[in-house]
C-alpha cells in the first residue's frame, strides 16, 4: 500500500477495525501514524479537560450534598404529604369529638351513702334559686334586710 490511508481507513484504524494491510501501513507510514497520534492526543486532551471540570464540580458539590433524590422524584411524596396533612386536619376534629368521654353532669349523684343522698336532695330543695344561678345572686342586694 503506497498511498496514504483514506479518511475511512484512518477511522477504521482508530476504532480497531482496520485490516492487516491498513494496520501495517499505519505503523510504518510516518504521516499516517502522526495523523493517528494527533487524533489520539486530541481525544486524550478532551477527556482530561472534562475530567478537570468534573473534579472541580465534585470538590464544589460533595457527594454527601447530592445523595437525596432530585426535585422531580420528590414531587409525588410532597403531594402525598400535603394531601395527608389535609386529611388529618379535616378528620382530626371528628376523631377527637368521637373519643371524648362524656363528662358527668355536675349535679349527678355520686354518693352511695343513703344519708348523704338525702342531705343533698334536701339541700337542693331548699335552694331559693337553681344552683347555677347562685353566683349571680351573690352580687344582688339583700331585699329581706
Amino acid at each position, binding site marked *: 500500500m503506497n498511498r496514504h490511508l483514506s479518511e475511512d481507513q484512518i477511522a477504521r484504524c482508530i*476504532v480497531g*477495525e482496520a485490516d492487516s494491510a491498513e494496520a501495517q501501513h499505519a505503523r510504518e507510514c510516518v504521516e499516517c501514524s502522526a495523523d493517528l497520534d494527533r487524533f489520539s*492526543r486530541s481525544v486524550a486532551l478532551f477527556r482530561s*479537560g*472534562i475530567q478537570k471540570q*468534573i473534579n472541580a*464540580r465534585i470538590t464544589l458539590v460533595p457527594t454527601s450534598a447530592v445523595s437525596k433524590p432530585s426535585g422531580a422524584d420528590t414531587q409525588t411524596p410532597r403531594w402525598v404529604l400535603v394531601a395527608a396533612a389535609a386529611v388529618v386536619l379535616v378528620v382530626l376534629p371528628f376523631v377527637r369529638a368521637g373519643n371524648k368521654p362524656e363528662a358527668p353532669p355536675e349535679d349527678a349523684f355520686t354518693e352511695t351513702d343513703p344519708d348523704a343522698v338525702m342531705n343533698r336532695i334536701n339541700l337542693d330543695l331548699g335552694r331559693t334559686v337553681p344552683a347555677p344561678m347562685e353566683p349571680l345572686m351573690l352580687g344582688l342586694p339583700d331585699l329581706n334586710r
Partner: protein
Amino acid sequence: MRSATTSGFVALHVENPAVEFENFDRLVEQYRPRVLRFLFASLRDMDLAESLAQDCFWNAYKSRSTFRGDCSVNTWLMRIAVNLVRNHTQSRRFQFWKKIQNTDNGEMREWPDHSVSPEESASIRQQVQSVWDATGSLSNRQRTVFLLRYLEDLDISEIAQTTGLTENSVKVHLFRAVRGIRKRLGASQ
C-alpha cells in the same frame, strides 16, 4: 467472578449482587464522577448533568433488586444514565430550548494549567474545544457511543450492553462518529 475489561475501575461481575448495594452511599461516592462525566459530556450542561446523575442513582436504588450481577455495576449505572439522556433529549422541553438557543455546544470552561506555557495552554484549550464542538455535531446515538468508548473507556461489548445495541451496530456508530469528528477537526484546523 470474572473481571470486565473496563480500565481504571475494578469492574467485577459479582456473585452476590446484593452485596454491591449494602453501602449505597459509598457506591454513589465511587461512581458519581463517572456518571456525572458522561452526563455532562452528553448534555453539555453541568447543572442538568448533576440533576440527572441524582436521578440515575435514585433509579438505581429503587431498582437495585432487579440487578442480577450479569454485568458490572458501572455498566448497569451507565445503562440507566444512557436511558435518562435519551429520555431527556427526546423531551419536548429539551427540544424547545435547544431550538431557542440555536446551539447545543456550549463552551468548555477554561482551566488554569500552570505546568505549561500560556501558548501551549491556549493550544490545548483550542483542541479540547474543537473536540467538544465536534461531539456536539454528532447524532445522539453516535455521541453516546463515542463518549462511552473514548471518555468512559468501555469496550465494544460493554457499550452494546449499555446501549442495547448489537456489537456490529456499535461499531458502525463508532466508525461514523470518529469519521464525523475527524471531519470537523479537519475543518477547524
